[in-house]
Protein backbone atom coordinates (compact mmCIF):
# COMPACT_ATOMS: atom_id res chain seq x y z
CA UNK A 1 0.00 0.00 0.00
CA UNK A 2 2.82 2.31 0.95
CA UNK A 3 4.64 1.70 -2.39
CA UNK A 4 1.39 2.21 -4.29
CA UNK A 5 0.79 5.58 -2.64
CA UNK A 6 4.40 6.77 -2.75
CA UNK A 7 5.54 5.52 -6.15
CA UNK A 8 2.89 3.85 -8.29
CA UNK A 9 0.20 6.52 -8.22
CA UNK A 10 2.61 9.43 -8.96
CA UNK A 11 4.11 7.43 -11.86
CA UNK A 12 0.62 6.74 -13.22
CA UNK A 13 -0.27 10.44 -12.93
CA UNK A 14 2.83 11.38 -14.93
CA UNK A 15 2.05 8.80 -17.61
CA UNK A 16 -1.64 9.71 -17.91
CA UNK A 17 -1.01 13.46 -18.10
CA UNK A 18 1.82 13.13 -20.61
CA UNK A 19 -0.13 10.76 -22.89
CA UNK A 20 -3.24 12.94 -22.63
CA UNK A 21 -1.30 16.03 -23.74
CA UNK A 22 0.19 14.13 -26.68
CA UNK A 23 -3.14 12.60 -27.81
CA UNK A 24 -4.87 15.98 -27.45
CA UNK A 25 -2.38 17.53 -29.89
CA UNK A 26 -3.33 15.04 -32.63
CA UNK A 27 -7.12 15.21 -32.28
CA UNK A 28 -9.73 17.88 -32.73
CA UNK A 29 -12.13 16.27 -30.23
CA UNK A 30 -13.18 19.03 -27.84
CA UNK A 31 -13.31 16.67 -24.85
CA UNK A 32 -9.57 16.05 -25.03
CA UNK A 33 -8.78 19.75 -25.38
CA UNK A 34 -11.05 20.76 -22.48
CA UNK A 35 -9.56 18.23 -20.07
CA UNK A 36 -6.05 19.03 -21.31
CA UNK A 37 -6.70 22.72 -20.62
CA UNK A 38 -7.74 21.90 -17.06
CA UNK A 39 -4.59 19.81 -16.51
CA UNK A 40 -2.40 22.65 -17.83
CA UNK A 41 -4.13 25.24 -15.67
CA UNK A 42 -3.62 22.97 -12.64
CA UNK A 43 0.08 22.72 -13.46
CA UNK A 44 0.39 26.52 -13.73
CA UNK A 45 -1.25 27.06 -10.32
CA UNK A 46 0.97 24.38 -8.70
CA UNK A 47 4.02 26.01 -10.33
CA UNK A 48 3.03 29.31 -8.68
CA UNK A 49 3.30 27.60 -5.29
CA UNK A 50 6.61 26.03 -6.31
CA UNK A 51 8.08 29.51 -6.92
CA UNK A 52 7.85 30.13 -3.16
CA UNK A 53 9.70 26.91 -2.34
CA UNK A 54 13.20 28.36 -2.85
CA UNK A 55 12.56 31.39 -0.69
CA UNK A 56 10.99 29.36 2.11
CA UNK A 57 13.74 26.73 2.07
CA UNK A 58 16.36 29.47 2.28
CA UNK A 59 14.46 31.12 5.14
CA UNK A 60 14.26 27.82 7.04
CA UNK A 61 17.96 27.01 6.58
CA UNK A 62 19.22 30.41 7.67
CA UNK A 63 16.79 30.62 10.60
CA UNK A 64 18.24 27.34 11.85
CA UNK A 65 21.76 28.77 11.45
CA UNK A 66 20.79 31.74 13.61
CA UNK A 67 19.16 29.53 16.27
CA UNK A 68 22.21 27.24 16.40
CA UNK A 69 24.49 30.31 16.51
CA UNK A 70 26.95 28.82 14.00
CA UNK A 71 30.20 30.67 14.48
CA UNK A 72 31.24 32.94 11.62
CA UNK A 73 27.94 32.64 9.73
CA UNK A 74 24.97 33.34 11.99
CA UNK A 75 25.44 37.11 11.71
CA UNK A 76 25.30 36.96 7.92
CA UNK A 77 22.29 34.65 8.11
CA UNK A 78 20.59 37.28 10.28
CA UNK A 79 21.18 39.86 7.53
CA UNK A 80 19.68 37.48 4.98
CA UNK A 81 16.62 36.64 7.05
CA UNK A 82 16.03 40.33 7.84
CA UNK A 83 16.28 41.14 4.13
CA UNK A 84 13.77 38.42 3.22
CA UNK A 85 11.28 39.58 5.85
CA UNK A 86 11.54 43.30 5.01
CA UNK A 87 11.33 42.65 1.28
CA UNK A 88 8.33 40.31 1.60
CA UNK A 89 6.33 42.52 3.95
CA UNK A 90 6.96 45.74 2.01
CA UNK A 91 6.38 43.99 -1.32
CA UNK A 92 2.97 42.78 -0.23
CA UNK A 93 2.17 46.33 0.87
CA UNK A 94 2.11 47.96 -2.56
CA UNK A 95 4.68 46.13 -4.72
CA UNK A 96 6.90 48.69 -6.49
CA UNK A 97 4.73 51.56 -5.26
CA UNK A 98 6.07 50.87 -1.77
CA UNK A 99 9.19 53.08 -1.47
CA UNK A 100 11.16 50.63 0.69
CA UNK A 101 10.49 47.69 -1.64
CA UNK A 102 11.24 49.80 -4.69
CA UNK A 103 14.50 51.05 -3.15
CA UNK A 104 15.68 47.58 -2.13
CA UNK A 105 14.82 46.26 -5.61
CA UNK A 106 16.31 49.08 -7.69
CA UNK A 107 19.25 50.11 -5.54
CA UNK A 108 20.27 46.83 -3.90
CA UNK A 109 19.02 43.72 -5.72
CA UNK A 110 19.38 44.66 -9.39
CA UNK A 111 22.84 46.32 -9.19
CA UNK A 112 24.22 43.59 -6.90
CA UNK A 113 23.02 40.74 -9.10
CA UNK A 114 24.42 42.44 -12.20
CA UNK A 115 27.77 43.03 -10.48
CA UNK A 116 28.09 39.45 -9.27
CA UNK A 117 27.66 38.15 -12.81
CA UNK A 118 29.96 40.81 -14.23
CA UNK A 119 32.79 39.19 -12.21
CA UNK A 120 32.70 36.39 -14.76
CA UNK A 121 34.49 38.65 -17.28
CA UNK A 122 37.59 38.62 -15.09
CA UNK A 123 37.54 34.87 -14.66
CA UNK A 124 36.97 34.26 -18.37
CA UNK A 125 39.93 36.48 -19.26
CA UNK A 126 42.11 34.66 -16.70
CA UNK A 127 40.86 31.29 -17.97
CA UNK A 128 41.68 32.28 -21.57
CA UNK A 129 45.25 32.95 -20.46
CA UNK A 130 45.59 29.63 -18.67
CA UNK A 131 43.60 27.23 -20.83
CA UNK A 132 43.51 28.44 -24.45
CA UNK A 133 46.61 26.75 -25.83
CA UNK A 134 46.97 25.32 -29.31
CA UNK A 135 48.44 22.06 -28.03
CA UNK A 136 46.95 20.00 -30.87
CA UNK A 137 44.90 20.51 -34.05
CA UNK A 138 41.53 20.29 -32.28
CA UNK A 139 42.55 22.85 -29.65
CA UNK A 140 43.88 25.08 -32.44
CA UNK A 141 40.54 24.91 -34.30
CA UNK A 142 38.72 25.68 -31.05
CA UNK A 143 40.96 28.64 -30.32
CA UNK A 144 40.92 30.01 -33.88
CA UNK A 145 37.12 29.90 -34.09
CA UNK A 146 36.71 31.59 -30.70
CA UNK A 147 39.10 34.37 -31.75
CA UNK A 148 37.35 34.96 -35.09
CA UNK A 149 33.90 35.12 -33.44
CA UNK A 150 35.15 37.55 -30.79
CA UNK A 151 36.91 39.83 -33.25
CA UNK A 152 33.97 40.06 -35.62
CA UNK A 153 31.79 41.44 -32.85
CA UNK A 154 33.64 44.61 -31.98
CA UNK A 155 33.39 47.58 -34.37
CA UNK A 156 37.07 48.47 -33.93
CA UNK A 157 38.28 44.96 -34.66
CA UNK A 158 35.80 44.66 -37.54
CA UNK A 159 37.27 47.78 -39.11
CA UNK A 160 40.86 46.76 -38.31
CA UNK A 161 40.78 43.30 -39.87
CA UNK A 162 39.16 43.26 -43.32
CA UNK A 163 37.20 40.13 -44.12
CA UNK A 164 36.85 39.03 -40.48
CA UNK A 165 33.08 39.62 -40.57
CA UNK A 166 32.61 37.54 -43.72
CA UNK A 167 34.81 34.74 -42.37
CA UNK A 168 33.04 34.77 -39.01
CA UNK A 169 29.60 34.76 -40.62
CA UNK A 170 30.60 31.89 -42.90
CA UNK A 171 31.90 29.85 -39.96
CA UNK A 172 28.72 30.52 -37.98
CA UNK A 173 26.22 29.85 -40.76
CA UNK A 174 27.90 26.90 -42.49
CA UNK A 175 30.17 24.43 -40.62
CA UNK A 176 29.09 25.53 -37.14
CA UNK A 177 25.41 25.18 -38.06
CA UNK A 178 25.90 21.59 -39.22
CA UNK A 179 27.77 20.65 -36.05
CA UNK A 180 25.34 22.40 -33.72
CA UNK A 181 22.41 20.73 -35.47
CA UNK A 182 23.98 17.34 -34.90
CA UNK A 183 24.59 18.23 -31.26
CA UNK A 184 20.99 19.40 -30.83
CA UNK A 185 19.55 16.29 -32.47
CA UNK A 186 21.80 14.00 -30.43
CA UNK A 187 20.75 15.75 -27.19
CA UNK A 188 17.08 15.62 -28.12
CA UNK A 189 17.24 11.91 -28.93
CA UNK A 190 18.48 11.45 -25.38
CA UNK A 191 15.66 13.67 -24.08
CA UNK A 192 13.05 11.66 -25.99
CA UNK A 193 14.48 8.42 -24.56
CA UNK A 194 14.31 9.91 -21.05
CA UNK A 195 10.73 11.09 -21.59
CA UNK A 196 9.67 7.61 -22.73
CA UNK A 197 11.29 6.08 -19.66
CA UNK A 198 9.51 8.55 -17.36
CA UNK A 199 6.12 7.99 -19.05
CA UNK A 200 6.53 4.23 -18.69
CA UNK A 201 7.41 4.67 -15.02
CA UNK A 202 10.96 3.30 -15.41
CA UNK A 203 12.56 6.54 -14.18
CA UNK A 204 11.17 7.42 -10.78
CA UNK A 205 14.13 9.52 -9.66
CA UNK A 206 12.47 12.46 -11.36
CA UNK A 207 9.84 12.62 -8.61
CA UNK A 208 12.32 11.83 -5.87
CA UNK A 209 11.43 8.16 -5.52
CA UNK A 210 14.33 5.74 -5.20
CA UNK A 211 14.18 2.06 -6.23
CA UNK A 212 13.07 1.16 -2.70
CA UNK A 213 10.25 3.75 -2.74
Amino acid sequence: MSVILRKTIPSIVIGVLAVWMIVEYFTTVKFFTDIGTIFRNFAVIIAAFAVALGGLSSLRFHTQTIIKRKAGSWEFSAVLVAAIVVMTVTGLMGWLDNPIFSYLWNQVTVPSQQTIYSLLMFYVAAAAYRAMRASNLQAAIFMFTAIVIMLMNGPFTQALIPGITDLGNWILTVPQTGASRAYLIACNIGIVALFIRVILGRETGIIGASKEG
Partner: protein
Amino acid sequence: MAEEKKNWMNSINARQVIFAAVFIVTIVPILFPLNLPLVISKTTIQYYDTVQKLKSGNTVIFVWNQGTAQFGEMGPPGIAQLQQLMDIPGVKVVVISTGAESPGLFESNLWPAIDPKGKEYGKDWVNLGYIPGGETAIAALATDTWSLVKVDWKGTPISQLPVMEGFKSGADIALIVGNQPSSGEEWQRQFQNKFKTPIVWACVSAGYTTALMFVNSGQLSGILNSLRGGAELELLIKKPGRGVSAMDAMSNLHLLVLATIVASNIIYFKNRGGKKK
Protein backbone atom coordinates in the same frame (compact mmCIF):
# COMPACT_ATOMS: atom_id res chain seq x y z
CA MET B 1 66.36 47.54 -1.89
CA ALA B 2 66.78 45.45 -5.04
CA GLU B 3 65.57 42.39 -3.06
CA GLU B 4 62.48 44.26 -1.89
CA LYS B 5 61.73 45.29 -5.50
CA LYS B 6 62.23 41.71 -6.68
CA ASN B 7 59.88 40.33 -3.97
CA TRP B 8 57.24 42.92 -4.86
CA MET B 9 57.49 42.03 -8.56
CA ASN B 10 57.33 38.31 -7.78
CA SER B 11 54.15 38.81 -5.78
CA ILE B 12 52.33 40.23 -8.84
CA ASN B 13 50.87 37.41 -10.80
CA ALA B 14 49.39 37.27 -14.28
CA ARG B 15 45.88 37.00 -12.87
CA GLN B 16 46.09 40.35 -11.10
CA VAL B 17 47.57 42.00 -14.19
CA ILE B 18 44.69 40.65 -16.30
CA PHE B 19 42.10 41.86 -13.75
CA ALA B 20 43.60 45.35 -13.74
CA ALA B 21 43.79 45.38 -17.54
CA VAL B 22 40.09 44.44 -17.80
CA PHE B 23 39.17 47.53 -15.78
CA ILE B 24 41.48 49.85 -17.69
CA VAL B 25 40.53 48.77 -21.22
CA THR B 26 36.84 49.14 -20.33
CA ILE B 27 37.06 52.49 -18.58
CA VAL B 28 39.13 54.27 -21.27
CA PRO B 29 36.67 53.96 -24.22
CA ILE B 30 33.75 54.92 -21.98
CA LEU B 31 35.58 58.07 -20.94
CA PHE B 32 36.90 58.76 -24.46
CA PRO B 33 34.44 57.17 -26.92
CA LEU B 34 35.61 56.54 -30.46
CA ASN B 35 32.04 56.26 -31.85
CA LEU B 36 33.15 53.93 -34.60
CA PRO B 37 30.49 53.05 -37.19
CA LEU B 38 28.65 49.82 -36.53
CA VAL B 39 28.15 47.32 -39.32
CA ILE B 40 24.59 46.07 -39.00
CA SER B 41 24.38 42.31 -39.38
CA LYS B 42 22.06 40.47 -41.73
CA THR B 43 20.13 38.80 -38.91
CA THR B 44 19.40 42.16 -37.25
CA ILE B 45 18.15 43.59 -40.56
CA GLN B 46 15.95 40.49 -40.96
CA TYR B 47 14.62 41.08 -37.43
CA TYR B 48 13.89 44.74 -38.06
CA ASP B 49 12.18 44.11 -41.41
CA THR B 50 9.98 41.34 -39.97
CA VAL B 51 8.72 43.60 -37.19
CA GLN B 52 8.22 46.55 -39.55
CA LYS B 53 5.85 44.42 -41.68
CA LEU B 54 3.28 44.46 -38.85
CA LYS B 55 -0.01 46.14 -39.68
CA SER B 56 -2.45 48.14 -37.60
CA GLY B 57 -4.68 45.81 -35.58
CA ASN B 58 -2.10 43.02 -35.33
CA THR B 59 -1.60 41.56 -31.85
CA VAL B 60 1.98 40.83 -30.85
CA ILE B 61 3.29 38.95 -27.83
CA PHE B 62 6.38 40.52 -26.27
CA VAL B 63 8.10 37.81 -24.23
CA TRP B 64 10.17 39.49 -21.54
CA ASN B 65 12.02 36.77 -19.68
CA GLN B 66 15.23 38.18 -18.27
CA GLY B 67 16.69 37.97 -14.81
CA THR B 68 18.47 40.74 -12.97
CA ALA B 69 21.86 39.20 -13.76
CA GLN B 70 21.39 39.52 -17.54
CA PHE B 71 19.67 42.89 -17.49
CA GLY B 72 22.86 44.79 -18.21
CA GLU B 73 23.37 42.74 -21.35
CA MET B 74 19.76 42.27 -22.50
CA GLY B 75 18.19 45.47 -21.20
CA PRO B 76 19.28 47.67 -24.15
CA PRO B 77 18.01 45.17 -26.75
CA GLY B 78 14.75 44.83 -24.79
CA ILE B 79 14.25 48.57 -24.73
CA ALA B 80 14.93 48.82 -28.47
CA GLN B 81 12.59 45.88 -29.21
CA LEU B 82 9.68 47.27 -27.21
CA GLN B 83 10.23 50.78 -28.55
CA GLN B 84 10.07 49.50 -32.12
CA LEU B 85 6.72 47.84 -31.33
CA MET B 86 5.41 51.04 -29.72
CA ASP B 87 6.55 53.05 -32.76
CA ILE B 88 4.31 51.09 -35.13
CA PRO B 89 0.81 52.62 -35.01
CA GLY B 90 -2.12 50.35 -34.26
CA VAL B 91 -0.09 47.31 -33.16
CA LYS B 92 -1.34 45.77 -29.91
CA VAL B 93 1.27 44.44 -27.51
CA VAL B 94 0.74 41.74 -24.87
CA VAL B 95 3.69 41.54 -22.47
CA ILE B 96 4.26 38.11 -20.92
CA SER B 97 7.00 36.99 -18.54
CA THR B 98 7.92 33.39 -17.89
CA GLY B 99 10.65 34.21 -15.34
CA ALA B 100 10.00 35.33 -11.76
CA GLU B 101 12.38 38.31 -11.84
CA SER B 102 11.02 39.65 -15.10
CA PRO B 103 7.91 41.57 -13.95
CA GLY B 104 9.89 43.69 -11.49
CA LEU B 105 12.54 44.44 -14.10
CA PHE B 106 9.86 45.31 -16.65
CA GLU B 107 8.08 47.79 -14.43
CA SER B 108 11.07 49.46 -12.83
CA ASN B 109 13.83 49.24 -15.46
CA LEU B 110 12.38 48.58 -18.91
CA TRP B 111 9.05 50.43 -19.18
CA PRO B 112 10.36 53.79 -17.80
CA ALA B 113 12.79 53.94 -20.77
CA ILE B 114 9.99 53.51 -23.33
CA ASP B 115 8.07 56.27 -25.13
CA PRO B 116 4.62 54.71 -25.56
CA LYS B 117 3.78 57.04 -28.48
CA GLY B 118 0.25 57.55 -27.22
CA LYS B 119 -0.52 53.86 -26.70
CA GLU B 120 -2.89 53.35 -23.77
CA TYR B 121 -2.68 50.59 -21.20
CA GLY B 122 -5.57 48.18 -21.57
CA LYS B 123 -6.53 49.43 -25.00
CA ASP B 124 -3.24 49.11 -26.92
CA TRP B 125 -1.01 47.13 -24.61
CA VAL B 126 -1.22 45.01 -21.48
CA ASN B 127 1.18 43.42 -19.02
CA LEU B 128 0.05 39.93 -18.05
CA GLY B 129 3.07 39.66 -15.76
CA TYR B 130 4.63 36.41 -14.64
CA ILE B 131 2.92 33.19 -15.70
CA PRO B 132 4.68 30.24 -14.04
CA GLY B 133 4.93 26.74 -15.42
CA GLY B 134 7.38 27.19 -18.30
CA GLU B 135 6.33 25.38 -21.45
CA THR B 136 3.09 24.13 -19.87
CA ALA B 137 2.00 27.75 -19.39
CA ILE B 138 2.97 28.60 -22.98
CA ALA B 139 0.95 25.62 -24.23
CA ALA B 140 -2.01 26.79 -22.12
CA LEU B 141 -1.73 30.30 -23.59
CA ALA B 142 -1.62 28.94 -27.13
CA THR B 143 -4.62 26.63 -26.70
CA ASP B 144 -7.05 28.76 -24.71
CA THR B 145 -5.67 32.03 -23.34
CA TRP B 146 -8.78 33.22 -21.51
CA SER B 147 -9.09 29.88 -19.71
CA LEU B 148 -5.67 30.40 -18.09
CA VAL B 149 -5.44 34.17 -17.75
CA LYS B 150 -8.27 35.77 -15.79
CA VAL B 151 -6.56 38.96 -14.68
CA ASP B 152 -3.55 41.02 -15.73
CA TRP B 153 -0.52 41.57 -13.48
CA LYS B 154 -2.27 44.42 -11.67
CA GLY B 155 -5.34 42.24 -10.98
CA THR B 156 -7.67 43.87 -13.54
CA PRO B 157 -10.03 41.30 -15.11
CA ILE B 158 -9.08 40.80 -18.75
CA SER B 159 -12.71 41.19 -19.77
CA GLN B 160 -12.21 44.88 -18.93
CA LEU B 161 -9.12 45.16 -21.17
CA PRO B 162 -10.07 45.68 -24.83
CA VAL B 163 -6.63 44.64 -26.05
CA MET B 164 -7.26 41.09 -24.82
CA GLU B 165 -10.19 40.74 -27.25
CA GLY B 166 -7.50 40.21 -29.85
CA PHE B 167 -5.84 37.32 -28.00
CA LYS B 168 -7.99 34.27 -27.37
CA SER B 169 -5.52 31.68 -28.62
CA GLY B 170 -2.30 31.30 -30.57
CA ALA B 171 -4.18 31.74 -33.84
CA ASP B 172 -4.75 35.42 -33.05
CA ILE B 173 -1.06 36.30 -32.74
CA ALA B 174 0.66 37.93 -35.70
CA LEU B 175 4.20 37.85 -34.28
CA ILE B 176 6.09 36.78 -31.18
CA VAL B 177 8.93 39.08 -30.14
CA GLY B 178 11.11 37.58 -27.46
CA ASN B 179 13.89 38.60 -25.13
CA GLN B 180 15.16 35.57 -23.25
CA PRO B 181 18.50 33.92 -22.39
CA SER B 182 17.75 30.90 -24.61
CA SER B 183 16.50 30.82 -28.19
CA GLY B 184 12.78 30.43 -27.49
CA GLU B 185 12.36 26.82 -28.57
CA GLU B 186 9.31 26.33 -26.36
CA TRP B 187 7.49 29.13 -28.22
CA GLN B 188 8.38 27.46 -31.51
CA ARG B 189 6.91 24.15 -30.28
CA GLN B 190 3.68 25.57 -28.88
CA PHE B 191 2.86 28.50 -31.18
CA GLN B 192 4.76 28.02 -34.41
CA ASN B 193 4.20 24.28 -34.92
CA LYS B 194 0.43 24.64 -34.77
CA PHE B 195 -0.30 28.21 -35.87
CA LYS B 196 2.79 28.99 -37.99
CA THR B 197 3.32 32.15 -35.92
CA PRO B 198 6.48 34.00 -36.99
CA ILE B 199 8.97 34.52 -34.17
CA VAL B 200 11.81 37.01 -33.79
CA TRP B 201 14.15 36.81 -30.84
CA ALA B 202 16.89 38.45 -28.81
CA CYS B 203 19.08 36.09 -26.84
CA VAL B 204 22.30 36.20 -24.88
CA SER B 205 25.50 35.72 -26.87
CA ALA B 206 25.99 32.23 -25.50
CA GLY B 207 22.65 31.21 -27.04
CA TYR B 208 23.38 32.86 -30.39
CA THR B 209 25.04 29.82 -31.98
CA THR B 210 21.93 27.73 -31.25
CA ALA B 211 19.58 30.51 -32.36
CA LEU B 212 21.39 30.82 -35.71
CA MET B 213 20.40 27.23 -36.45
CA PHE B 214 16.77 28.23 -36.15
CA VAL B 215 17.27 31.31 -38.31
CA ASN B 216 18.89 29.09 -40.93
CA SER B 217 15.93 26.69 -40.87
CA GLY B 218 13.39 29.54 -41.00
CA GLN B 219 11.95 28.91 -37.54
CA LEU B 220 13.22 32.29 -36.36
CA SER B 221 12.66 35.22 -38.70
CA GLY B 222 15.43 37.30 -37.16
CA ILE B 223 17.70 37.37 -34.17
CA LEU B 224 19.47 40.02 -32.11
CA ASN B 225 22.84 38.95 -30.72
CA SER B 226 22.60 40.33 -27.18
CA LEU B 227 24.14 43.75 -26.57
CA ARG B 228 25.63 44.01 -30.08
CA GLY B 229 22.27 43.19 -31.68
CA GLY B 230 20.61 45.68 -29.36
CA ALA B 231 23.07 48.38 -30.44
CA GLU B 232 22.34 47.62 -34.10
CA LEU B 233 18.58 47.80 -33.52
CA GLU B 234 19.00 51.08 -31.64
CA LEU B 235 20.62 52.51 -34.78
CA LEU B 236 17.91 51.10 -37.05
CA ILE B 237 15.09 52.64 -34.98
CA LYS B 238 17.17 55.82 -34.69
CA LYS B 239 17.34 55.81 -30.89
CA PRO B 240 20.98 55.19 -29.95
CA GLY B 241 21.36 54.27 -26.30
CA ARG B 242 23.54 52.29 -23.94
CA GLY B 243 24.01 49.50 -26.45
CA VAL B 244 25.78 51.72 -28.99
CA SER B 245 27.93 53.38 -26.34
CA ALA B 246 29.12 49.97 -25.09
CA MET B 247 30.56 48.83 -28.41
CA ASP B 248 33.96 50.55 -28.15
CA ALA B 249 34.61 48.90 -24.81
CA MET B 250 33.48 45.59 -26.31
CA SER B 251 36.22 45.80 -28.98
CA ASN B 252 38.83 46.59 -26.33
CA LEU B 253 37.87 43.66 -24.12
CA HIS B 254 38.04 41.29 -27.06
CA LEU B 255 41.48 42.58 -27.99
CA LEU B 256 42.56 42.08 -24.37
CA VAL B 257 41.37 38.47 -24.39
CA LEU B 258 43.16 37.96 -27.71
CA ALA B 259 46.34 39.40 -26.19
CA THR B 260 46.12 37.02 -23.21
CA ILE B 261 45.61 34.07 -25.56
CA VAL B 262 48.59 35.08 -27.70
CA ALA B 263 50.78 35.64 -24.62
CA SER B 264 49.71 32.30 -23.18
CA ASN B 265 50.53 30.46 -26.40
CA ILE B 266 53.93 32.16 -26.76
CA ILE B 267 54.87 31.11 -23.22
CA TYR B 268 53.50 27.60 -23.83
CA PHE B 269 55.43 27.02 -27.06
CA LYS B 270 58.58 28.58 -25.60
CA ASN B 271 58.42 26.24 -22.60
CA ARG B 272 57.61 23.28 -24.81
CA GLY B 273 60.60 24.11 -27.02
CA GLY B 274 62.80 24.37 -23.93
CA LYS B 275 61.60 20.97 -22.62
CA LYS B 276 62.28 19.28 -25.98
CA LYS B 277 65.91 20.50 -25.86
